[in-house]
């Protein structure tokens, strides 16, 4: 149990160290531009004066965190099996525009209407990501390259659909949008829940999609940690060769994982779409897919960590406003976000080494008979003893023999 506690501690250590390093660097930067770092941080954590402002601030943070969380999850699922899905951006944009159009076009009773929109978004996202998986297993195309390229195509396609066949806004309107989704396709806000808890009524609605996101997070956590499929996925991520030897069909896993990652990516735009926008337009929030990479990295690809990372990013995002009121440049927030992501890469490496050392000690203290494991930690080698750079992804000629 102490070993478990230590591992949990170590897994928290990396992100915490990263946040700390980022705060120190940011404090230095703030001090350099002649502002008081302490005052700046105080402004950032100040949620407002009145209860309603405070609740509103929390709602703003939560509403921002929901899409970030989903984006982080989408990236993380692929990460966990060693796939780098950079295409989340294109997947959610295309999924959102099509889901918005379908949602506006169909007339159905409320729960069914909503379900149709969600399913369309997930299917579109999954199919778009599936292209990447299929290209990888059939043609050996690196998922990094193909997903970046598909981003461009997706953005262009979404733009074409929006300005062409799916256009719902009147000609001449500055913002081009799809038609509005009627009430039966919208997700009600959770403000009733907030007031029911005795909290002040916030000015904007807390996204009902928050609950969906939580469910998705739990499902992904269970899928990764508790199911055979999740085991195969993680095993492939840890060692494609060992997973293949254990009977995992690496090609199938690539496609399945991309489908799941894309399906989650399809959900990213829905909190905004179904909670406040009700249509997809030219001003629809872009870039969430890329932010998701940072969130997944910060959350170490674990659902709970991603939730915390999303909340942190959302919190920092909101903090940019009070900072500006206090005449501190809001770029401080951008600096903090950037340094966190950089620091997390470094801190993860430090934490990994500490974990390794702790594991070695644990192994060493196993029996009075054994010293430090002679096995040590030699890098994975190929059978001929020559060290190869490990591709880290299945589906390459070596990994996909099955």
């Amino acid at each position, binding site marked *: 149990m102490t070993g478990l506690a230590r591992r949990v501690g170590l897994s928290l250590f990396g992100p915490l160290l990263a946040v700390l390093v980022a705060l120190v660097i940011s404090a230095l930067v703030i001090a350099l531009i002649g502002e008081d770092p302490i005052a700046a941080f105080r402004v950032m954590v100040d949620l407002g*004066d009145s209860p309603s402002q405070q609740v509103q601030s929390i709602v703003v943070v939560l509403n921002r965190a929901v899409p970030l969380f989903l984006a982080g999850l989408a990236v993380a699922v692929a990460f966990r099996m060693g796939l780098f899905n950079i295409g989340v951006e294109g997947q959610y944009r295309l999924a959102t525009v099509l889901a918005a159009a379908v949602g506006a076009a169909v007339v159905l009773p409320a729960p069914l209407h909503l379900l149709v929109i969600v399913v369309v978004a997930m299917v579109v996202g999954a199919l778009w990501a599936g292209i990447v998986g299929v290209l990888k297993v059939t043609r050996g195309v690196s998922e990094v390259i193909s997903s970046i390229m598909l981003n461009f195509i997706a953005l262009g396609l979404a733009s074409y659909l929006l300005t062409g066949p799916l256009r719902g806004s009147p000609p001449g309107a500055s*913002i081009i949008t799809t038609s509005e989704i009627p009430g039966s396709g919208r997700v009600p806000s959770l403000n009733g829940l907030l007031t029911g808890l005795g909290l002040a009524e916030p000015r904007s609605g807390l996204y009902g999609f928050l609950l969906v996101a939580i469910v998705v997070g739990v499902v992904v956590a269970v899928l990764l940690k508790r199911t055979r499929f999740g085991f195969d996925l993680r095993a492939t991520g840890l060692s494609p060769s060992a997973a293949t030897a254990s009977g995992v069909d690496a090609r199938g896993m690539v496609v399945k994982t991309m489908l799941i990652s894309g399906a989650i990516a399809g959900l990213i735009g829905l909190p905004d779409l179904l909670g406040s926008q009700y249509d997809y337009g*030219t001003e629809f929030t872009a870039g969430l897919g890329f*932010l998701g990479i940072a969130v997944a990295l910060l959350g170490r690809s674990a659902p709970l960590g991603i939730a915390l990372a999303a909340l942190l990013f959302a919190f920092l995002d909101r903090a940019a*406003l009070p900072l500006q009121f206090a005449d501190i440049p*809001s770029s401080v927030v951008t600096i903090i976000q950037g340094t966190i992501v950089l620091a997390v890469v470094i801190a993860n490496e430090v934490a990994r080494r500490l974990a390794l050392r702790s594991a070695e000690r644990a192994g060493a203290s196993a029996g009075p008979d054994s010293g430090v494991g002679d096995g040590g930690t030699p890098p994975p080698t190929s059978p001929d003893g020559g060290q190869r750079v490990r591709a880290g992804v299945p589906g390459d000629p070596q990994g996909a023999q099955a």
Partner: protein
Amino acid sequence: MKASARAMALLLAGSMALAACASDEPAAEGGGEGGGGAAAEELRVGLAYDTGGRGDRSFNDSAYTGAAAATDALGGELQELSPNDDASNRADLLVQLAEQGFNPVIAVGFNYDDVIAEVAPQFPDTTFAQVDGSNADGAKGDNVTGLIFAEEEGSFLAGVAAALKSESGRVGFVGGVESPLIEKFEAGYVAGAQAVNPQITVDRQYISPAGDFSGFNDPARGQIVAQGMFDGGADIVYHAAGGSGLGVFQAAAASGNRAIGVDSDQYLTVSDPALQAVIMTSMLKRVDNAVEGFINDYAEGNVEGATDVLNDLSTEGIDLATSGGFIDDIQSEIDQYKQQIIDGTVTVPTTIE
């Protein structure tokens, strides 16, 4: 005049403070910077930027210049807010400014269309304005004024200048993002060029498709697009591409051709002499004048709401820059067209056929 403005401001600020109290919990205002007290005397202007925020050397900065000029002259406070990187918190900017008691609150950019319509009705005692957003029909609320521009008129003159100066009979237009707003620039430019020379060829291209705002801030792609036009025989390229315009200038400088700037007098804003030399003129969109004018109107109590303030050639909200003296020789012809537009004898289209 000035005294009356101050009195007006005092009155407004006071009433606003009361309104803020009313619209919120009574306890709320105690700790704030004070709806009353010292600040109450001042004009408190809130300015919410669009993507890119302050320091974009374009649109947002221009709005700031106007707002700062007005608050300097009238006395008072100016609070700016930039959105986050993906500008997903536009609504929050307006809410925060209104909640903190800033009045008037000015939103910069047509992207505020939806959110201002959402937020303004929640703060009936705050006066809002939106740069580049129309509220002639009052759909966004009775307390919103649209500050709109006849970009097509200035672009028409840019087209006139380009056609008069072109030796190849081929000119170009680079748009930042495919959108109704930028299409206004394109339509005016094409019409102006064809008014001078019906046979002229106008190459037209957008950097990014609708919904992808990277085209306003991607000099590298701006350069590639413009270079393509110069390679194809165009000798003057007009850009309506925000920050990407820099790339257009670089392409012009590299190929020995010329370019036309947009929004501000870019001859004055670029620091590199090599680029200055290729900026033949700029289509001026005086966001600063519009914002300054609006604040002055507000201070004088002349804002009605649910209307548009149209800035065009007649109000000098739109113009063609002459810095550098490159178009001095054709100034009389340009002035002719200008007068015809103001008189209404020439109608400039706002959409492309």
